[in-house]
């Protein structure tokens, strides 16, 4: 139910609606809950609405954190 997925905003439509794209699939969603969305932004979708903007810098930092945690563990001789 809480199912949500990030998708890229590729076009604006009337009435706070927008087209978002995920790997070539295009869906029409509502931007009524978000301000300041620009073309090319990634938004998190839930039941047909964009709920939050995805921060690409934070995303990158999080992935780097995962890698760091793993490397540190392996360096100490830990195993999965």
């Amino acid at each position, binding site marked *: 139910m809480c199912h949500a*997925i990030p998708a890229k905003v590729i076009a604006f439509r009337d009435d706070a609606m927008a087209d978002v794209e995920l*790997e070539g*699939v*295009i*869906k029409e969603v509502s931007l009524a809950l978000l301000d300041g969305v620009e073309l090319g932004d990634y938004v998190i979708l839930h039941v047909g609405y964009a709920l939050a903007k995805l921060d690409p810098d934070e995303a990158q930092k999080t992935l780097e954190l995962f890698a760091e945690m793993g490397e540190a563990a392996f360096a100490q001789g830990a195993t*999965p």
Partner: protein
Amino acid sequence: MNAPQKPPQKPRPKPHGNKPGSRPLDLKNGRVDMSHGAGGRAMAQLIEDVFIGAFDNELLNREHDAAMFTLPPGRVVMSTDSFVISPLFFPGGNIGSLAVHGTVNDISMAGAKPYYLTAGFIIEEGFPLCDLAEIVKSMADAAKDAGVSIVTGDTKVVERGHGDGVFINTAGVGVVRDGIDICGDLARPGDKILVNGTLGDHGVAVMSKRENLSFTTAILSDSQDLGDLVSDMLDAVPDIHVLRDPTRGGLAATLNEIAHQSGVGVELIEDAIPVRPEVKSACELLGLDPLYVANEGKLIAICPSEKADALLAAMQAHPKGKNAAIVGEVLQDARCFVRMKTGLGGTRMVDWLAGEQLPRIC
């Protein structure tokens, strides 16, 4: 192999439009009405102009209630399927092409060569004749490509509101050559499991046409005849144990069926299962799992493990198998569980779902 005995030559009947006192069918703007199902002249005209005109073969042209033929020697295989898909027209096909591919493939999944099909139609009053003609043409084209003839059929018309445009049933007959023994209960521990290409295409293509989902995609249904692919596969590996097409319920349902029939377990490797990126993302957007989405031009093959590489090579050499892959293996498991090593490295079950994730997908 002897060819079926040819019936005496008879010229195809001329369309009614040439007979005095009758008007040709308005295939462009006309609609099916109750008289087309009543058994009288109107029905005869519909059958001749729309069905016989398109399917056009010697057996059908005799216009007898039953088609008579002999088959080459070997075990006879019969199958039937009804088609209630909604919408009737979808990217990559329509209910007509599907109706031919579905039954022809069921016959092929027994390792048999299909020869003849029946076609029964239940048409709703008011259904546009142009749509009917297009559906029938698709059936004719699909039958020709698959090397089968539609040799007998039936037409009924139901009152407006009591159908859904059109429902179609096809039944088919084929022959299995000697030395081929394929059945759902023949999977054995150690066997490898192969598929001939990407999964989930048909279901996603059909969903994209459902109005309340509002998404667009370039994905086409994979609906196609698999007979020629199966023929090449059997040439390469005659002792294939199981063939089945994962239609409604997808790979998951089909493997669970086979597991139970054979009394074995299955382990799949998630990373090995081919799924197009667009199908993955459409499924993510809709909260679906591609393993459970219908396919109409795919097959699962289960063969002894030492033959798997040869089978894979034969599949990949054929245009309908270029994305073929070995996706798992059969295990000893009295509980008949189908499990999968996930892309993450953990394990999960691929359970037999309670019901269809989406209605009317086939």
